[in-house]
């Protein structure tokens, strides 16, 4: 070796950079790392905690996979997805909650007392119906303007949750959201609920995979690449965008219903814009136009959120912020060196 250490370092760096840009390697490392992390946390904290973590993962995974259909496959950078999540959660809360606990009732509150499985389809359909109305307007916009209008939707949704007190109880939130019951089997245990969420996650992943690997999915990608050319080749792109937007929102509504039932308490703070931005980060971090990437991203995110509580030197009140800092740093690094995300196939 007669090359100086400096050039060796430089060439190593260059090689590292190419490795980083190439698919495969980094995706594998990320997978191994995240899953190993999950196993370690499980062993350390016990299975009870892992079950909770798993449930949160399922809900976030449904959200990120569904958002990827819109952002990654169709190229519509929506930051308002949390609104549909909220509609699902509030649908579940309003329809199933037993509000008789309310002693000092200042406003008349609707009370339905439906069972979980009657409310869940309503959550999905409500999210889809709102998406249909909103999407018909959003279809006029593209690119950066699209980000702005979807941002507007997230803000409006949050304010509706906060201000429509007759329905949502505003900042007080809704307690005692029902847990599901199948016949005599009451899904009250945490493990039971995890299984239920996992089944729904499987269904969502299955539907998503079916759609993106169909001819329809290919047209969505063409719309992402050049909508006008897709039109010239005979596709009424507004209908395609609307269809995937509504399907995606319905999945988010489903995630919302599960979330409401899981936490048994719903208030507007779960649906702030920040959550929506975190969700977009997960999708980009995991990889655009990759379902596997979204699952990976959601898992990494959940581990960040929950796992950081156990970092010994980090005071617990900083956990929330530290998670956002880590996510932010990861996002910047990824955009610099790997714009398609960990497992992605598409660059923003």
């Amino acid at each position, binding site marked *: 070796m007669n090359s100086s250490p400096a050039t060796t370092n430089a060439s190593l760096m260059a090689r590292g950079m190419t490795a980083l840009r190439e698919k495969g390697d980094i995706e594998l490392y990320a997978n191994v790392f995240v899953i190993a992390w999950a196993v370690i946390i499980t062993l350390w904290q016990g299975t009870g905690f892992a079950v909770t973590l798993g449930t949160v993962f399922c809900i976030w995974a449904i959200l990120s996979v569904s958002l990827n259909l819109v952002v990654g496959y169709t190229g519509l950078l929506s930051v308002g997805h949390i609104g549909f999540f909220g509609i699902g959660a509030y649908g579940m809360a309003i329809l199933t909650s037993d509000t008789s606990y309310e002693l000092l009732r200042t406003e008349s509150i609707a009370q339905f007392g439906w069972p979980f499985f009657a409310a869940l389809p309503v959550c999905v359909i409500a999210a889809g119906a709102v998406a249909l109305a909103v999407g018909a307007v959003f279809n006029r916009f593209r690119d950066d303007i699209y980000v702005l209008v979807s941002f507007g939707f997230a803000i409006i949704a949050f304010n509706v949750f906060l201000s429509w007190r007759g329905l949502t109880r505003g900042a007080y939130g809704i307690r005692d959201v029902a847990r599901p019951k199948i016949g005599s089997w009451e899904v009250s245990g945490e493990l039971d609920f995890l299984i239920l969420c996992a089944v729904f996650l499987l269904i969502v992943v299955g539907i998503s995979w*079916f*759609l993106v*690997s*169909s*001819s*329809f999915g*290919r*047209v969505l*990608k*063409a719309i*992402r*690449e*050049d909508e*006008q*050319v*897709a*039109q*010239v*080749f*005979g*596709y*009424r*792109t507004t*209908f*395609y965008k609307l*269809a995937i937007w509504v399907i995606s929102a319905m999945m988010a509504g489903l995630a919302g219903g599960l979330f409401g039932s899981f936490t048994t308490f719903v208030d507007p703070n779960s649906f702030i814009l920040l959550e929506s931005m975190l969700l977009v980060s997960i999708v980009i971090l995991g990889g655009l136009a990759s379902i596997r990437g979204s699952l990976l991203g959601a898992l990494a995110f959940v581990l960040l959120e929950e796992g950081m509580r156990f970092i010994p030197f980090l005071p617990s009140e900083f956990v929330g912020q530290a998670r956002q800092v880590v996510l932010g740093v990861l996002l910047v690094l990824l955009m610099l060196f790997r714009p398609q995300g960990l497992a992605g*196939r*598409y*660059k923003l």
Partner: protein
Amino acid sequence: MTHHHIDPSEYFGIQTIGLTKQFGGVKALDNVTLTIPIFGITSVVGPNGSGKSTLVNLLTGVLPYDQGIVKIETNSFEVIHAYETPGHGITRTFQEVRLFDQMTVWDNLMVVLTNRKLWASMIERSNGRQGADHREKTEEILKKVGMWEKRDSMAEDLSYGQRKLLEIGRAMALEVQVYILDEPFAGLFPQMLERVKDLLRELRASGRTVVFISHNMDIVRELSDQIIVLESGKFLMSGEVDKILNQPEVIRAYLGT
């Protein structure tokens, strides 16, 4: 070289009547009335800014026109939407190559063949047992444009010439009557140039209408059956190659430069 004899009054493919398009205060096309015959290869020539690309963009709904009527066969249109283009029997390429960049070469062609019914396309899985005809068509075209080996590459990773060829191939994947190619020869190496010429001749031989825009007068002379000349947004003249290229106005307006 044999040329079809064209009598525009007897056959017409596409006709524009008083077609006008303004960009701000500039008239890109000014009251243009012309006929693109159904037979053979028609070239559209004219200096830069004469409105050639605008004409194509209006015919395919990429831009809306301000005034005028477009007649396609027996139908008259006051408005053309881009998504109606294949329905009108037209497909096209763009002056600046517009591929689906972050998709494979294979998918760039396959996407064009998809079922146009939204719900049906959700069930259609053309890489599976269904869609054998789509795959055959795609393979045929890819071999024809010499891109078969590149089928798994991303379109954005291709060279300029390959991109140009792929775009022509994508247009050819649609079986329609009229193929409008906006500067298909610009910036191509001689070998690729010959390949594109062959593709155009092949389309003509199969009874298709080919319309192409070009600045290369040798190719125009070699391939065209009819020439349409535009000058600063106005229709100057059209007719058979030898007749047109000897007109003093044409020489002054275009060839003389």
